[in-house]
């Protein structure tokens, strides 16, 4: 597949933070792509670098402590890392939109919801005040807020958690972006509300055809939503595959371990949950060798010496591991 066909192409992205305690190696050479209209899930636990990667793509990293050290972010074949801040502002909101985990802190609590919508609309399009207002009411209705017209003047705290998230989605999709980045948008919501929001996003995607990057730590949500999945650990991508292929047969020990640590609501309890010994590595040290080696049950000498590269181990299924997890032997 030629590079030109991808909507987003991230190549060897490295982001670090320079702090008094030392250098934080947050993102260490991450490469992936997103096709038009595709839903890509990014899975990992806290500290794996998934949020920092997305913030780096949108250049929202505060640059005194943070720095995008190297890499390219090709969006519609244009390198976002080389754009001027002014042009970048045009990209954010209009072409790439982002929604966050906690709508209470990402919505401005002192501005009405209608105002926040119309502001986005008027920044990126040529609507006048009246047109923007009409469109704002339409958007609220579209995301399923009852009596949308009356609620334009309400403030974020007057909505419930699920409703606020819908408002965030409305703001994000107001200018019909090509890519929506969702950073754990349902983690803080109740499970029935989460189901509603996921349902909504799926419908909106069908209507609008945008690509989605969905960040989560919940493998169940991934199974329900994603076309492809990337698994991150300690600032690296350790596995990348089609969603069915990943759940059928994960190839990286970390992914396998995560799946075995999960209890299931749809099956009778089989045995004790499998745990991963140890703890995630400190990001303050320059990575040497495979970051998962200290905790891996398949570890070999080579893993400690050399960080495995992300290689295609099966058709369109990449894993960064020297070991064949089915046999436990080193790959040739």
């Amino acid at each position, binding site marked *: 597949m030629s590079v030109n066909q991808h909507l987003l192409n991230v190549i060897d992205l490295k982001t670090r933070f320079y702090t008094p305690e030392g250098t934080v190696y947050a993102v260490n050479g991450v490469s992936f792509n997103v096709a038009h209209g595709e839903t890509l899930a990014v899975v990992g636990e*806290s500290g794996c670098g998934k949020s*920092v990667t997305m913030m780096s793509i949108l250049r929202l990293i505060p640059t005194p402590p943070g720095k995008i050290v190297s890499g390219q972010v090709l969006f519609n074949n244009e390198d976002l890392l080389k754009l001027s801040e002014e042009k970048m502002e045009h990209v954010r909101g209009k072409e790439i939109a982002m929604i966050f985990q906690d709508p209470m802190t990402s919505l401005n609590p002192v501005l009405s919801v209608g105002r926040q919508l119309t502001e986005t609309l008027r920044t990126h399009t040529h609507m006048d005040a009246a047109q923007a207002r009409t469109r704002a009411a339409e958007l609220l209705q579209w995301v399923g807020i009852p009596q949308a017209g009356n609620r334009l003047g309400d403030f974020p705290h007057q909505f419930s958690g699920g409703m606020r998230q819908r408002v965030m989605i409305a703001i994000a999709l107001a200018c019909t972006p090509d890519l929506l980045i969702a950073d754990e948008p349902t983690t803080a919501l109740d499970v029935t509300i989460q189901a509603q929001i996921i349902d909504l996003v799926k419908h909106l995607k069908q209507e609008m055809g945008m690509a989605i990057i969905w960040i989560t730590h919940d493998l169940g949500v991934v199974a329900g939503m994603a076309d492809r999945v990337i698994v991150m650990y300690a600032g690296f991508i350790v596995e990348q595959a089609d969603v069915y292929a990943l759940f059928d047969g994960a190839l990286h020990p970390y992914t396998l371990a995560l799946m075995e640590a999960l209890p299931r609501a749809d099956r009778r309890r089989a045995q004790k949950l499998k745990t991963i010994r140890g703890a995630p590595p*400190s*990001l303050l040290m320059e990575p040497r060798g495979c970051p998962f080696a200290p905790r891996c049950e398949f570890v070999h000498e080579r893993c400690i010496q050399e960080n495995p590269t992300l290689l295609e181990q099966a058709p369109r299924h990449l894993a960064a591991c020297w070991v064949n997890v089915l046999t436990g032997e080193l790959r040739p």
Partner: protein
Amino acid sequence: MNPSSNTIPQFIVEEVEPPPLPLSQLTWRRFVRHKMAIFGLIVLSMLVFYSFGGGFFVSEAYANKTNTSLRLDAPVAAHPFGTDTVGRDILARTMYGGQISILIGLTAASVEVLLGILIGAIAGYYGGWIDNILMRFTEAMLNIPQILLLIIMAKFFSSNVPNIQLLGRTYSGSVVVIILIIGLTSWPYLARIVRAEFLSIKEREFILAARATGTPTWEIIFKHILPNCIAPIVVSATLGVANAISLEAYISFLGMGVRAPTATWGNMLEGAYNYIETAYWLWFFPGILIVLIVLSINFLGDGLRDALDPRSRTA
């Protein structure tokens, strides 16, 4: 509560576990960055040394020795700060006066802190009508100008108090009276702060955990909640010392504070009232000492406030 940090942006905080640094080290590091606080600490130490250390070189009798032939002499080698209206050496008097002023500052602040903590803790922890009554009383006290209260109480109480012997010195009983009334009129500020801290801390989950353990109430108040609001108490106590010293200076200057022959920097100013232009050394030296000590304590308090702020966890 995840450690918040000024240098690492909010969204990454949960992704990095900071290396454990003992709280005391962190606090010291933050304090040391405050240049004015270090300056204040140094100047304060010098003043304390001057007042208390000076007592080894100069006896109290000498400080009180009158010699009318030398009265109102300008500063010379024998009397570097000059002499006062009855010929006493001002340098020596500032040393002994300093002891009293600092002593008053410290003990009045202690009275204030004790009362403030007690009232604030009870009001904050129990709430309800106890809180209501205590707070209305506190507010009433806050509305009366402290100086007025001090003057009235000083006038009323200090006339008939005998002298006391303590630590090898004789004090006018008015010192104790002044300490008590400054302490008794300064506590409302601290009480409000302590109450606010108690109101917020008692809702925290570790307090519920202590109740679930069966910990008795007084232990919860003094061993659980109080250690968590040490920071504002320390800052308030420090500034309270400076406040007490200046209040003492005010009322002694008005003639209602500490009585003769005990010297304080404040009542030395009173004696200078009529000689402001003619004998500047009468008011200049005690005055500058008061300014220096109040300033240095304030700087120190500022530094402590920043260093002890639990929200800032970077060094």
